[in-house]
């Protein structure tokens, strides 16, 4: 699998000359864990939506294994800040939903359902209604639903942003484990330097106004990574400074206008 992003530009709206994203170029290889890091409002989520095919770019193109992306598809599953599970279905039926759409056989569905719900440790909760789950459990079900579809890329739009600190820590560990087990390619959008450092093979810094690739930073800290390690702290300092520059830029512009 390889994802090739070439000259993606997206305007604020049709008739505007301000760009949300400007000339984004990026290549992503199989099995990579990439974080798109940037201040809020820099267009990183928009880029993820364009990769998902949910939003059209104004120019440029994205190819997945040589094929141009023009619409959403189950080879690129997106996860959101909210779990987006369907409240009218139970946990099990939510996880089956995508597999049914994909036309998998009943046996295959059962197999994957068990495998991935066990992977996120929620197999026991398969008959629950969605509103009976905590925020963290919902995100785990959403992850299982995505994994069942055996997509080429998992796109995650700040998937932990609505959760509490403890839950975030647990889920980060789980996600890393699952990534190592499944060898999925993951692109995760975040505004948290810590999160990006914890996950990434490479961090793509997106600058703001307009959203451009400001820097691509390869992170070689060995796994499992610890937030307290010296390497971690050093890189974090540098990244925080770079991020602050961008945040300041946004603030300045907001004051000016």
């Amino acid at each position, binding site marked *: 699998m390889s994802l090739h992003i070439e000259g993606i530009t997206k305007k604020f709206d049709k008739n505007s000359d301000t760009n949300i994203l400007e000339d984004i170029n990026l290549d992503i290889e199989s099995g990579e864990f990439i974080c798109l890091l940037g201040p809020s409002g820099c267009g990183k989520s928009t880029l993820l939506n364009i990769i*998902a095919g949910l939003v059209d770019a104004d120019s440029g193109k994205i190819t997945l294994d040589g094929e141009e992306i023009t619409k*959403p598809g189950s080879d690129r599953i*997106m996860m959101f800040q909210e779990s987006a599970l*369907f409240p*009218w279905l139970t946990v099990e039926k939510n996880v089956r939903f995508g597999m049914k*759409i994909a036309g998998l056989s009943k046996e295959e569905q059962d197999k994957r359902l068990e495998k991935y719900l066990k992977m996120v440790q929620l197999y026991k909760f398969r008959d629950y209604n969605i509103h009976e789950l905590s925020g963290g459990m919902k995100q785990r079900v959403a992850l299982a*639903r995505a994994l069942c579809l055996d997509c080429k890329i998992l796109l995650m739009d700040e998937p932990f942003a609505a959760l509490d600190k403890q839950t975030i820590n647990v889920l980060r560990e789980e996600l890393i484990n699952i990534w190592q087990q499944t060898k999925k390619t993951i692109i995760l959008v975040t505004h948290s330097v810590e999160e990006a450092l914890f996950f990434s093979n490479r961090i793509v810094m997106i600058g703001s106004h307009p959203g451009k690739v400001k820097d691509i930073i390869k992170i070689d800290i060995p796994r499992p990574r610890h937030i307290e390690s010296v390497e971690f702290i050093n890189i974090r300092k540098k990244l925080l400074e770079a991020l602050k520059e961008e945040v300041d830029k946004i603030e300045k512009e907001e004051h000016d206008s």
Partner: protein
Amino acid sequence: MKKKSTTVKKILSRIGFIIIIIALWELVYLLGVEVLGLWKSYTIPSPQGVWERCVDMFSFDYTGMSIYAAVAASLLRAFIGFAISVVIGAVLGFLISKFKYLQENLKPIILGIQTLPSVCWVPFAILWFGLDQSAVIFVIIVGSAFSIAMAVDNGIQNVDPLYIRAAKTMGVSQSQLYFKVIIPAAQPMLIAGLKSGWSFAWRALMAAEMMISMIGLGQILDAARSIESDINKVTLIMLIIIVIGTIIDRVIFTNWENAVRRRYGLDRDRK
């Protein structure tokens, strides 16, 4: 256990309240009609008179217009009218939600027409369909189809866009999006729409039956005053109309609505 005893308590308290109302009614009747003679007895019903009429009408050797036949005729008409309203309302609501042109131009007109009480359609109904079954059903349809259409449109419009995005990323087709995501997601609002549509239909039916004089509850009600001058019978029929309307609203629609809301986790903030 605790839950059960509170429901029993609630029911008892409600029955008690109804007894109080009936007692007050009897008191007012006795004072106003029999003791002070303020009102003529044929203008004020009495609890006892209504009860006697009830026993009388529901007994099988009643010689007048059968109450059973009237209830059956009214209910049948209501169901036919309501069923057609649901179909028309669903199609119209879907089209309005789908096409911006209709959303902007047709919707305001429908909202306007909706302010017209359905009984105002009776003249048209009689001219077009005569004093016939279909005239009554026509009045029911104009009375409830538009409100259902508005509810369908609202339901579809208010589906959380996140569900739609999530479904699209899993690769659903356009028809799957409607049948597997949008309709289920809108279900609580759709049921609420059916419920209000039903109550419009029931009201429209009674008005139409009184004016068009088809066999039915509305017609018995009107005849009880104009032909028989029997105020107790008028009251009894009114009570029957209330009871049937309430039973259908409670037993079917409210239960259904609550079950769905519970499953969706929408009633957690209540109470």
